């Protein structure tokens, strides 16, 4: 403290006015080096893979010469274009169905005196944490046109042979997807509804509008931006989804962009064509985000009407059970029914034989846990890949959030942009970018755990960043300055003051990244090597191995692990940690 070695003598003031590089270095905070590293990390994780993807799409395979042939190949067949159209329609239909599921639920939970809100909330949470491809398997068991339990029950009840729902159809596919995407819209809309004061509704009531009219004319229009935001997110998620379309889409004869991309990765691997084919996905995403920005730029709506005024639940009277019934119905579709059939299959010797004592076995679990060569390694892989990516993402995110919040570098907003950019990049595109950039020598990461960890880190960086930025913003800069002026360096201050203050929110963010990474399929399926298969990829592989009992049991294990994590998260970071909108 006392050796003020770097203090200039007074006679040096002339020199101090124009300090040389060396002198500048003496004044450099050691932490500045870290910022340089961070920029490097972000370029590596985000800018280079996407840049490489763009470059590769114009390269001839082998020689690397400039060509437009990849685009000609990628869009040269009607079937490929049709897949693009299918994806767009699927995205739109799934988003629409999600709205139908989510908005009434959000309204009921946020604004009414409906009974069983906790249960509804748990259902939404359940639908959110259930991996979509697992739901897809469940729905195959439920709604196979001939054998699905739902359709068998329908035939038994009505005597009609025609199935009630056919999962192997465009609608079936969209339904299954939306049953796992609607929680996104629910979160958006509920948090918007939570900000509306009852006075807004009272004002309409006093003018003679009934509850229904008020809800339709006042309440819902106020949350329209949230609904729109949710629609866009679900649309983008759907367009980038791989697992569900692969499992349901092929029997349904529906080819979409992601399954088509997978075909380009078949022998012979045509990553150049895949890159060219991935471009519209990127453009659509950027376009959608731009549209959303444009629409929300008009602001207004909820943000200005928030605060002030009490919030009273709307009395539904005898309608409350009807609303409750709808919430229960959605919960049944999204969680209870698929979960029940999956559990049944996982404990069955032959699931086609249904529920019977002599059909029950623990053998499927036993087989996976004790006799299957890949099951345990894949669980281990999943756990440590997810933990490593969550750690890396949170560390990078919190450092970037910190730099940006404290304006430590002049171009901090660029860092923030890079950290948020993967949000608009579909996971499957990200994976192809990583493959193109880092699979081959000289970096040669193909088949390593590192490439998966890096891809997961990049993919989920925005989640970690949004979380960290909120946490850092909540710490007054003077908290840190107080430590610095007392003699603590920047890094010591971060360690001793800032870190303890934000650690709880960071744990929440870490767990969210961990959970979403542990079920990520789209990015993983292109990057796994023989020894780096994750649970999600193994599950996908099992889905074509002709043994649904084992598949269901493995899904059961995946869910069990997720549930344990969610429970830990609730304990450490609060009940709402996953369904908070940040």
């Amino acid at each position, binding site marked *: 403290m006392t050796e003020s070695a770097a203090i200039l003598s007074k006679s040096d003031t002339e020199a101090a006015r124009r300090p040389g590089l060396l002198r500048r270095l003496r004044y450099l905070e050691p932490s500045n080096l870290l910022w340089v590293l961070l920029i490097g990390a972000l370029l590596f994780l985000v800018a280079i893979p996407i840049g490489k993807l763009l470059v590769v799409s114009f390269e001839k395979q082998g020689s690397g010469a400039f060509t437009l042939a990849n685009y000609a190949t990628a869009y040269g067949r009607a079937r490929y274009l049709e897949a693009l159209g299918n994806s767009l329609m699927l995205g739109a239909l799934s988003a629409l169905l999600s709205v139908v599921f989510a908005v009434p639920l959000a309204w009921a939970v946020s604004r009414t005196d409906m009974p069983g809100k906790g249960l509804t909330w748990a259902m939404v949470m359940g639908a959110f944490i259930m991996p979509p491809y697992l739901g897809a398997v469940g729905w195959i068991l439920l709604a196979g046109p001939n054998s699905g339990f739902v359709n068998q029950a329908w035939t038994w009840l009505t005597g009609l042979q025609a199935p009630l729902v056919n999962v192997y159809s465009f609608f079936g596919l969209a339904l299954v997807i939306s049953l796992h995407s609607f929680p996104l819209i629910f979160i958006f809309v509920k948090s918007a509804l939570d900000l509306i004061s009852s006075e807004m509704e009272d004002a309409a009531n006093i003018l003679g509008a009934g509850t229904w009219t008020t809800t339709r004319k006042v309440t819902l229009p106020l949350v329209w931006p949230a609904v729109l935001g949710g629609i866009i997110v679900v649309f983008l998620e759907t367009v980038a989804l791989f697992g569900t379309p692969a499992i349901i889409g092929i029997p349904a*004869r529906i080819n979409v962009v992601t399954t088509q991309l997978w075909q380009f990765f078949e*022998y012979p691997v045509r990553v150049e064509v895949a890159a060219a084919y991935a471009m519209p996905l990127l453009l659509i995403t950027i376009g959608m985000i731009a549209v959303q920005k444009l629409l929300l730029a008009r602001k207004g709506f909820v943000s200005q009407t928030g605060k002030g005024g009490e919030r009273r639940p709307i009395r539904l009277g005898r309608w409350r059970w009807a609303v409750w019934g709808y919430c229960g119905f959605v919960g049944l579709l999204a969680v209870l029914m698929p979960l029940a059939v999956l559990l049944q299959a996982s404990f069955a010797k032959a699931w086609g034989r249904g529920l019977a004592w002599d059909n029950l076995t623990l053998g499927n679990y036993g087989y996976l846990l004790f006799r*299957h060569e890949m099951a345990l390694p894949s669980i281990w892989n999943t756990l440590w890949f997810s933990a490593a990516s969550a750690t890396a993402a949170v560390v990078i995110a919190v450092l970037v959030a910190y730099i940006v919040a404290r304006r430590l570098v002049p171009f901090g907003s660029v860092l923030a942009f890079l950290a948020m950019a993967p949000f608009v990049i579909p996971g499957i595109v990200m994976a192809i970018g990583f493959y193109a950039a880092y699979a081959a020598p000289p970096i040669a990461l*193909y*088949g390593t755990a590192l490439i998966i960890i890096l891809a997961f880190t990049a993919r989920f960086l925005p989640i970690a960043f949004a979380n960290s930025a909120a946490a850092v913003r909540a710490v007054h800069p003077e908290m840190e300055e107080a430590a610095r002026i007392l003699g603590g360096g920047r890094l010591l201050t971060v360690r001793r003051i800032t870190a303890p203050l934000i650690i709880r929110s960071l744990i929440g963010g870490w767990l969210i990244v961990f959970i979403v990474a542990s079920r990520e399929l789209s990015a993983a399926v292109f990057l796994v090597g023989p020894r780096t298969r994750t649970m999600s990829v193994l599950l996908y592989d099992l889905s074509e191995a002709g*043994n649904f009992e084992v598949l269901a049991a493995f899904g059961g294990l995946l869910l069990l692990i997720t549930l344990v994590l969610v429970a830990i998260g609730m304990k450490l970071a609060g009940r709402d940690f996953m369904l908070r909108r940040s």
Partner: protein
Amino acid sequence: MLDFNRRLFLGLAAGGAAAARFGAARAAELRPHEKELYEAAKKEGQLTWYTGQYQAEPSEAIGRGFTTRFPGVEVNVVRSTSQVAFQRLSQDMRAGVAQCDVFSSTDHSHLAFLKQNERLMPYKPQNAAGLIKAAQQAADPDGYFQVTYLGLFLMGRRSDQVSEADAPKSWKELLDPKWRGKVAVGHPGYSGAITSWCLAMRKLYGWDYFKALEKNQPQIGRSSADPVTMLNAGERQIGAAIPSATTLLSISRGNPITMIYPTDGTLMVPAPSGALKNGPHPNAAKLFMEYMTSPAYYEATRPFFSESLRPEVPPPPGSRPLDEVTMITADPDELERDGQEVKELWRDTFGV
């Protein structure tokens, strides 16, 4: 019938253990060339096997069986469909990574391609001389790869819904409109066996066969085993081009399925295996090739209903002896030449 099934099921459950016992019993009987390789392989300690020939469980039983027979040499079993396995291997090669030591596929063209690109080790296992004739004939004449598995692809029916009298007798009969919405089949883009089947059917009946089949709206899965699942579920009543081994396994679990040997020929797919030239564990790879052509191997795979390629080991229970079955097969050259083409044709015809 019930007893029989239960016995099979128990046999299956004990499969791994049985393989281990066989291995232990034969450990003393290692032939001199095996011993020599074993010593060298022990130093390498492991090998990685990409396979699409067997389902996961038998693949892993094979891996365990090998390690029991040759303690100290572990097998990293990487099992998937043949297409995916080959896709991974292609990605490896493109990335310049050598991870795989032995590659087994149901698709002959995969190994032919590897041979052509000088990726394979010219190693002819000495044990191969004891294989049945069909297997020896289908192997690579230069010894770059062997036939280690004979896939039989036939039809299956839900015995509780389709009587033997009603059931289709031949591939041709699948085109009958009465099977509309009742047939399930795999996908040549995901399964090498289905590619072979496509070629065989095209040769017999022309591509119009598939155009007519499309009119019957078959349910399309990915692997050739997917239709078995659909039969188990009762989703479909006829499975086309399903593997005999998976079907027998399903039957043994109590599912009401019966196999149909088509009169116009059961598809026989000789499935090749080869050791990679630049693999990280060359001696272990050679030893594994010896193992795959030895009786111990077919004893280890018999509980999983796979056909035996050694005369010493009898065919799996419930299966017809090979000499009583009418066989058709796809010409390897044709497979190599037209494989991609039929996949595209398939996608154009069926839309996926």
